[in-house]
């Protein structure tokens, strides 16, 4: 039992309860999507079949799932670290862009051995994303502005900054608003030639393990979690609340920046507008869904990516818009958030009806 002592992060319901909640949430999502699909005049069963078949139709589609989930997992892991101190990092997209562009600049202009280029690109992308995220965290910690609104504004600022850079000073010849490609030698190798999945996914697994270790085993992780539980108590405990809160947002931003680097070096080899399709928002959703646990973030990202790949391939056969993924995703997360409260309300109402003697037991 000693080993599990620190695993108990919150006064959460028992394992069975959380399984029940998740099942209810997924059931809700399925019901909603059945309603949506029915109103399209399609057969839900065959649509689901198409989605699953589409997602697992061949090796390349499976690898596509891995490729799609790579950046989301990395950003989601970062989100979970910010969430430990009570911050919501909704700025993943902006941080991703800043990481991507700075990594691309290194990739294009730094002429050095591959390893050095990689390490430099990783460091610079983490720094760029970290500053972008840390800024929002800094304002929250010092002057108590909403880090959510600042982060969303910073997303747009990054978006337009990238738009400016790829259509002006960094534009590749040819008129398309994009940078030059990074040299082939520094590109991350593919898992299987011809697919979109690359070795970046291995980083992801290591990173998740690392995050788990830090949050569950180390003093640093403990301090972050303590701040999130009660900033007042943490301060009394001698924990540097402000400094660590900003740090947690810096790390979250750094993760998103690193995701940008991975995408540039592994998938696109250059930066163009629209390289992030709201990864940041998706990552926050999944992190909430996973209750900020690394393994849950991996599983959740894979599930959502499966759904996306499946729906994408199905769209050719059946006319169901891809945005159904967004709907399903939000319905699941909404239900996950709301379900325990509804059940608690229900139980509370039931308990109230019991006479006092029996209640003492419960």
């Amino acid at each position, binding site marked *: 039992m000693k080993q599990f002592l620190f695993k*108990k992060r919150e*006064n959460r319901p028992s394992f069975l309860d959380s399984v029940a909640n998740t099942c209810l949430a997924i059931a809700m999502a399925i019901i909603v999507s059945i309603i949506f699909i029915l109103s399209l005049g399609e057969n839900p069963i065959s649509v689901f079949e198409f989605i699953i078949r589409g997602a697992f139709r061949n090796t390349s589609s499976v690898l596509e799932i891995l490729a799609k989930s790579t950046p989301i997992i990395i950003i989601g892991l970062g989100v979970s670290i910010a969430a430990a101190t009570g911050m919501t990092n909704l700025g993943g997209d902006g941080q991703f862009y800043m990481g991507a562009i700075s990594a691309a600049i290194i990739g294009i202009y730094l002429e050095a051995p591959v390893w050095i280029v990689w390490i430099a690109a990783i460091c610079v992308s983490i720094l760029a994303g970290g500053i972008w995220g840390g800024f929002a965290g800094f304002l929250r910690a010092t002057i108590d502005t909403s880090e959510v609104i600042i982060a969303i504004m910073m997303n747009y600022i990054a978006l337009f900054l990238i738009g400016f850079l790829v259509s002006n000073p960094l534009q590749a010849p040819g008129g398309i608003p994009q940078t030059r490609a990074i040299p082939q030698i520094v590109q991350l190798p593919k898992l299987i030639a011809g697919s979109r999945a690359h070795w970046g996914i291995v980083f992801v697994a290591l990173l998740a393990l690392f995050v788990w270790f830090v949050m569950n085993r180390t*003093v640093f992780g*403990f301090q972050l979690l303590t701040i999130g539980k009660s900033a007042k108590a943490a301060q009394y405990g001698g924990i540097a609340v402000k400094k660590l809160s900003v740090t947690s947002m810096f790390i979250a931003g750094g993760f998103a920046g690193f995701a940008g680097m991975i995408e540039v070096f592994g998938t696109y080899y250059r930066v163009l507008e629209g390289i992030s399709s709201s990864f940041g928002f998706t990552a926050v959703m999944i992190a909430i869904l996973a209750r900020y646990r690394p393994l849950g973030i991996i599983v959740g990202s894979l599930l959502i990516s499966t759904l996306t790949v499946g729906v994408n391939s199905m769209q050719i056969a059946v006319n169901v818009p891809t945005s159904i993924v967004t709907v399903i995703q939000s319905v699941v997360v909404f239900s996950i958030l709301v379900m325990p409260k509804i059940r608690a309300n229900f139980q509370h109402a039931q308990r109230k009806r019991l006479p006092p003697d029996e209640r003492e037991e419960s």
Partner: protein
Amino acid sequence: MLNPANTILEMKGISKFFDGKPANDQIDLKVNEGEIVALLGENGAGKSTLMNILFGLYQADHGEISIDGKVVSINSPLDAIALGIGMVHQHFMLIPAFDAYENIALSISGKRNGLVNHQVIREQIKKHSIQYNLSIVLDTIVQDLPVGLQQQVEILKALFGECRILVLDEPTGVLNEQEKIKLFSSLKELKAAGLSIIFISHKLDEVLDISDRVVILRKGKVVDSVTTNRTNKEDLACRMVGRDVVFSVKKGPRLFDNKMKDRVLEIKNIEVHGKRNTQTIKDLSLTIHRGELFGIAGVDGNGQSELVEALAGLRHVTKGKIFLNGNEITNRSSRSIKQMGLAFVPEDRRSMGTIASYSLDQNIFFRNSDSKTFRKHFGQIDKKKLHMLGDRLIKDYDIRIPHRDMLVGQLSGGNIQKVILAREISSDPVVLVAMHPTRGLDVGAIEFIHTRLLELLSSGAGILLISTELDEIISLSDQMAVISNGKLSRPFRPDELSLSQIGLLMGGSDEEACR
């Protein structure tokens, strides 16, 4: 007088449970027209719970309430107000950001949503305040008013609801002597006008002074009901407490005599600002020697919180200096102050002193997370060592914890306080600052904590004890002082002044008046 014809309120068999524990247990209460009934009882006797049930803030689990002989159901304050029940809460129920006028207007809003007729309401306020001799400052934001005036607003607000039964929950706790006299004269005025008043208090003199009848509560039960002019202070005290001696632990002979003049804590003329500038510490100084317990008595909210937070490094000190064992600690971080040997038992034991959703080990660790003792390679937490320390503290401090992984929030108040005390004392402090360490605890736990504090003294540490329980301060302190309005009286030995002199100091009178 006990003619049932003019019984206005009757509460029958009221029971209320919190987490399975009875706060009210089969309580019966009758109030007649034009009568002042005092509800007397110690902290936690269930007085406030009963009144919150009457006012619709809580729902009783059992029992019924009837007004004018008719059984009523009170599900919200709205119902209570409609039935003519007004309440002056212990913690004022006023909107701090509103002025008095807006607060009173809000209180009569009821089901109305339309226009506020400024003139009519102002006229009415004027009329009422003259009629009941209340002083109302209309256009100042409530949070900027002195508490006495805030309370007048609170009373007027209750009267505005056309109330026939006025409940006052510990109304004198925050008042100084003059404000108290003013309040009592208002209450007599109201009684003469035919109102029934329920007066909640744990102060015997007040109860004897104002009430017609005293209902005594102990541990959630009514133990007695007596007519005021047939009782006296000693009698009431005995019934209220239900035991002869409140504090059995007395400090022994001083182990460190005056030759050991080591000053462990020295506060020199500090000034501290409170939240929203509510209460400011002005020019406060005190000195604690090795092995000495310095007690600060005073009514809540007179700057105690600001003082201890400043000491612990949680609040900025604007002027003056603080020395711990000769080293200056003014405005240093809470971490370094702790490392230099200042241990701190905060007043809010559930949300500051501990983290409810952490285990015992984690609760010990969050106050020591920077210490090298519990750190392994790669910044890992040494859980084994921590666990051993936890085991030791559980044994030494008799912490009743059903199993080791249980969350501290599920423990009883007494056990939570033991966890905090164990953690703080185990760090071998030079000075321990303890704020309300025994508030709301049962006798056994209080005794235990007092014993531990005295043990710590004998090991040579200094203690600063802050409490609202005068008996506690008097029985434990070597030196004591009274804090009032952010100012500390001159230090004195507990036997130097009489109880009434100390009481006067607490009421804000200056020292000359006590001589």
